[in-house]
């Protein structure tokens, strides 16, 4: 008889998870190159209860589970910063970054030069060009990344930042710190992806959408709580009546 409560609970657990996803999106509303996640729910059909003595067969119980959190790979707004080492990607591509754990990918183009003259991310991981990390020497000044992704200085052009893409972007996992790890191989991005110099890609979290979904989650959660609570009252009343019948 607790099935209704369990179904309610499954919905509440799923909604609780969705709230966490929304909270993470909103918290990263200012994170450069952040891609929002959305929750996908699935119906989970409980195997039939095996009472076959009734006239009509039992219906299967339908629970909710949160099946996945899909990455929303839509373009974030591009904000001009005027910093010559900032680049934003327009289109479907990632920068490749060399980390101690292996190659990682990011849409965050807030690059700097480190003390050794390497182009690095804000965590100090080298940004990969066509031939490994991009390096300038200490004789060179005025480092700028151009519209084709090439780092140039007063002494000429250096390497070009590598743009990669994936057959299945949903297969990317967040590695934290604006980085993604991929299980599939990275392939060079096509000409439809290009870089925007002197700009950064903002988070693609849509505040209005996040806030309205937040309200919806909150209300749905309360509604389910109310339903479960009423069911509980119903059970209580039923038991009381039955008890009354017994004593009468």
């Amino acid at each position, binding site marked *: 008889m607790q099935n209704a409560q369990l179904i309610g609970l499954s919905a509440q657990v799923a909604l609780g998870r969705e709230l966490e996803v929304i909270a993470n999106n909103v918290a*990263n509303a200012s994170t450069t190159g952040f891609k929002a996640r959305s929750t996908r729910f699935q119906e989970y059909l409980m195997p039939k209860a095996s009472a076959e003595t009734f006239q009509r067969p039992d219906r299967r119980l339908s629970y909710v589970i949160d099946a996945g959190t*899909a990455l929303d790979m839509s373009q974030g707004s591009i904000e001009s910063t005027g910093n010559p080492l900032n680049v934003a990607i327009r289109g479907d591509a990632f920068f490749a970054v060399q980390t101690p754990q292996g190659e990682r990918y990011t849409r965050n183009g807030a690059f700097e030069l480190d*003390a050794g003259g390497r182009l690095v991310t804000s965590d100090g991981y080298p940004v990969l060009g066509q031939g490994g990390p991009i390096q300038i020497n200490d004789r060179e000044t*005025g480092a700028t990344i151009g519209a084709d992704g090439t780092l140039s200085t007063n002494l000429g052009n250096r390497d070009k930042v590598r743009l990669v893409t994936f057959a299945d972007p949903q297969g990317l996992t967040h590695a934290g710190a604006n980085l993604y790890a991929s299980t599939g191989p990275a392939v060079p991005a096509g000409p439809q992806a290009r870089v925007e110099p002197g700009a950064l890609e903002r988070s693609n979290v849509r505040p209005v959408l996040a806030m309205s979904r*937040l309200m919806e989650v909150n209300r749905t959660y309360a509604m389910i709580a109310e339903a479960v609570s009423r069911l509980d009252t119903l059970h209580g009343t039923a038991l009381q009546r039955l008890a009354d019948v017994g004593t009468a």
Partner: protein
Amino acid sequence: MRALYAAATGMAAQELNVQVISNNIANLRTTGYKRQQAHFQDLLYQNLRRAGSATSDQNNMLPAGLSLGSGVKTTSTARVMSQGTLSSTEKTYDVAIRGEGFFQVTLPDGRTAYTRDGSFDLDPQGQIVTRDGYLLNPAIAVPNNATGVTISASGTVQATVPGQTAPQQIGQLQIARFVNKVGLESAGDNLFTETLASGPPVVGNPNTDGFGSLQQSYLEEANVNAVTEISSLIAAQRAYEMNSKVVTAADQMLSTTSQMFRG
């Protein structure tokens, strides 16, 4: 409820963002000030279902995983080292750098600090000093009978002394540049100090070899753009508000849970 903590990290990040923006606005008229920009990163994710894991033995797999993030952190408040506008002051010892480089200043404890603020004056010994009285490095002394002091684009300091028709060279200003100037540490008083991240200074004469040129009687204004700062301030404030809404929602959901069974 993790949502509470994720939203709290969001609020903390936006608070810091507002702090950085307000410092930029406060230094709108500071000579040689370089604006800061807060950079954020997402925190670790908990993978409840990993993308690509098998859903059957027929080679089916999950197209998208289920991963829950835990909020945001601030990585850096890097300075944007772009050129500020030069404004004319008509003062002899005001110098601005156009392009790469920092003036070198000797601190009282002997260390060298770096600055883009070229509002210099003379001390009682005739030496060129900063507004705080710190000596310029290399030190340049102006004879007390000298007139018509000029500082050329390449840093040559010349003056006319009585009894001489041609102006005499009395010193050579040198500036320093860094591979990673963003890595310099701010020491306050418009000064920067060298760090491991900035790399060692490369010292040279202005207007040569990638160094910027000097402009006498000009000062470099802060590179803060009021409009940009105000719009970032509004965005930060709204983001803060949204995060607080998430906290409220999470709180309401918790309260709903605790009130489910009142009987």
